């Protein structure tokens, strides 16, 4: 496997996991903000800007990894990406308003607006992902796309529904909503079924990749089973494992899909030249380690009690 592809996919999996966790938080903020205000603020406030930075990180890494794909991708996905970008900006704006405005009606109003924008942003972002996997809604040879078939394709809708269900699963457990496991387990199995249905019907090359490497699906399901058992036992590491499960599952999907793009094309034709590969990998490794270390400091500081006044 191409190392640049692996690095880019690893970054994508973390970015996408963060996105799905935010969809989960947005769902809760939309449906029952007042009941979960403290938990949501404790999770979202230190991390939402990092999520946004991860989006930029993934975008630039993609540009560096697949430079010759940019002309094509920039032209055919111009509309959904700009719409996702606009929603992303509004999501950031409303969340920071809610963060600093102080408790009250305005905060709740801004949190709801944030939640709607997050869902809209995710919808358009996932439509680009779905189209990139399947080739639906685009004509690569003609360098064109049709927005409505692209975003309203059954594949995209199933993919989005699956992501929302996974987000609900993570959210239910992470924020301890409605009792552990009560709705979470059905949600995650419904999500897997929905996504697999979409893939089998509309992304045949990816489905063939999964069938040919069925052990990848088995690994994902095994980790999920362990996660669910830990959750049943109310083990404190269950939530960490569920996040790890999602990151690993996205990567396993990437392995199954390798090296396809747009349904039938090979991604390898777009990968950066060998001259650029080494510095890119070195920067990714060193920079990634620095980011991980910084995040560890952030988590450490968030656990220190506030007891000094100055």
């Amino acid at each position: 496997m191409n190392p640049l592809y692996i690095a880019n996919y690893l970054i994508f999996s973390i970015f996408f996991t963060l996105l799905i966790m935010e969809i989960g938080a947005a769902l809760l903020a939309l449906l029952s903000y007042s009941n979960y205000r403290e938990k949501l603020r404790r999770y979202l406030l230190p991390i939402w800007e990092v999520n946004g930075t991860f989006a930029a990180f993934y975008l630039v890494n993609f540009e560096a990894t697949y430079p010759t794909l940019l002309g094509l991708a920039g032209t055919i996905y111009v509309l959904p990406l700009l719409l996702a970008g606009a929603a992303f900006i509004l999501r950031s704006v409303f969340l920071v308003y809610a963060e600093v405005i102080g408790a009250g009606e305005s905060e709740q109003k801004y949190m709801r607006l944030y939640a709607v924008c997050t869902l809209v942003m995710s919808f358009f972002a996932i439509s680009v992902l779905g189209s990139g996997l399947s080739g639906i809604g685009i004509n690569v040879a003609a360098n064109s796309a049709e927005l409505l078939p692209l975003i309203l394709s059954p594949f995209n809708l199933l993919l989005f529904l699956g992501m929302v269900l996974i987000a609900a699963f993570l959210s239910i457990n992470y924020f301890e909503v409605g009792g552990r496991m009560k709705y979470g387990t059905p949600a995650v199995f419904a999500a897997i079924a929905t996504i697999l249905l979409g893939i089998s019907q509309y992304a045949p090359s990816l489905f063939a990749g999964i069938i040919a490497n069925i052990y990848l699906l088995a690994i994902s399901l095994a980790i999920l089973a362990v996660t669910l058992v830990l959750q049943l036992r109310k083990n404190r590491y269950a939530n960490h494992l569920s996040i790890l499960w999602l990151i690993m599952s996205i990567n396993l999907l990437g392995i199954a899909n390798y090296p396809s793009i747009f349904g039938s094309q090979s991604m390898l034709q777009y990968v950066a030249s060998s001259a650029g590969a080494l510095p890119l990998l070195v920067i990714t490794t060193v920079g990634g380690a620095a980011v991980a270390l910084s995040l560890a400091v952030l988590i450490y500081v968030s656990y220190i009690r506030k007891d000094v006044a100055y």
Partner: protein
Amino acid sequence: MLVVDFDRFLMGFSLGVHIPLASIGIALPLIVMLAEYLGIRYADRNFMVLAKRLSLALVVLFAIGTASGMLIALNILLLWPKFMQLVAQVAILPFYLETFAFFMETIFLSIYIYSWGKFKNPYVHLISVIPVVVGGFLSGALITMINAFMNTPVGFDIQAYISSGAVTNIQPLAVFTSPSALIELAHVLTTSCFAAIFIFIAYMAYRLLRTQDEQKRNYYIKGLNLLIVVGAVFTVLALVTGIVSIATLVNLQPEKYAAIEGNLYPQTFAPERIGGIPVGNTLQYFIPIPELQSILATGSPSGMVPGLSSYPVDTWPPLIVHLMFDIMVGSGFLVAGILALFVLLILLKRNPYVNRLMLWLMIIAGALAVLILEIGWVMAELGRQPWIIYNVMRVSDAANYSTSVIPITGLILLFYVIAIPLTIVLLRRIFRNRPLEEELKA
């Protein structure tokens, strides 16, 4: 042609809003750090409150700036796909490194904001803002390197690219040493800090004008003392780097230099032309200062400076850049004059903070600083026209001609039109909900 103009307008408008936000993102962490240091060092509550309140403003402006920056990144990819395709192959590393600098800013800003009062030793908290300062300056420097690449492209076989479109002999690290990189990032960073600091000088002067409360006046005066000292340093640095920056254009981008100076023909003993009206391809009705241009550009009155006539007409930048240059330099001297007046009042042992005219001049200086920043960037970008990458790729060759861009333009403009005023209203509400007098007493 219409779609290219839309692309151009959208990009220009987005950058016009984003650049002041980005400048604040570079300068404000530095001010927050200095204020907290002074607060700890001299056990001065005024500076601690200043650091805390400015850091709150930083969070909001940083968030809006980040969102706007993400939109700019998308705009570049979507509006100029062929440009981005070449940059991604040849000069992507500064962009990529910038995301890590950005991570450093983001993560440590969170740490800084959410760790007030968490450390027994206050210097530990102060240390947490240092990566935010470093990250801000690094982000600005790395992004400027891409602009330097656009002005003086390196890192690939340019002749082969022009003749066949093939990108060969790629040297991905060359972008860090492009001929204009060093002077450009020195000038961009200093002018960004200069403009952002003067915005806050204007704000503090305005608040000082509006209050009679001694405690509050003391707070604003201390804030202004800090800002004016740092602002004066960056004013000098911006001026020096600006002069060097213009002089380097003589060799690196002679057409841009000639248009900025209003030189139709190359000449020795060239006068500095002040003002003037572009008529066709000539400049008329200007005031000449004999030999000054040659002296500034080459160090000698007999030095030869380039003229537009040496280049094909279709590669001439618009002559309006000359007027922009004059407005920028003239405004810069006005700000420097206001600073000089402030120093003069102090030397005459007069308190500048009780002089209402002086405070109004500080507010005007803030507005001029923003004008200088904006017009400086417009001049620099217009001065490179018709090229997006100098002598390599024209703007018209890089653009996305898909008409689907046009309706989105409205949405993005709407974002800026709504979000920026809303942010200002929100900042007012935040600070109204946290009365200064209570924070000073706490």
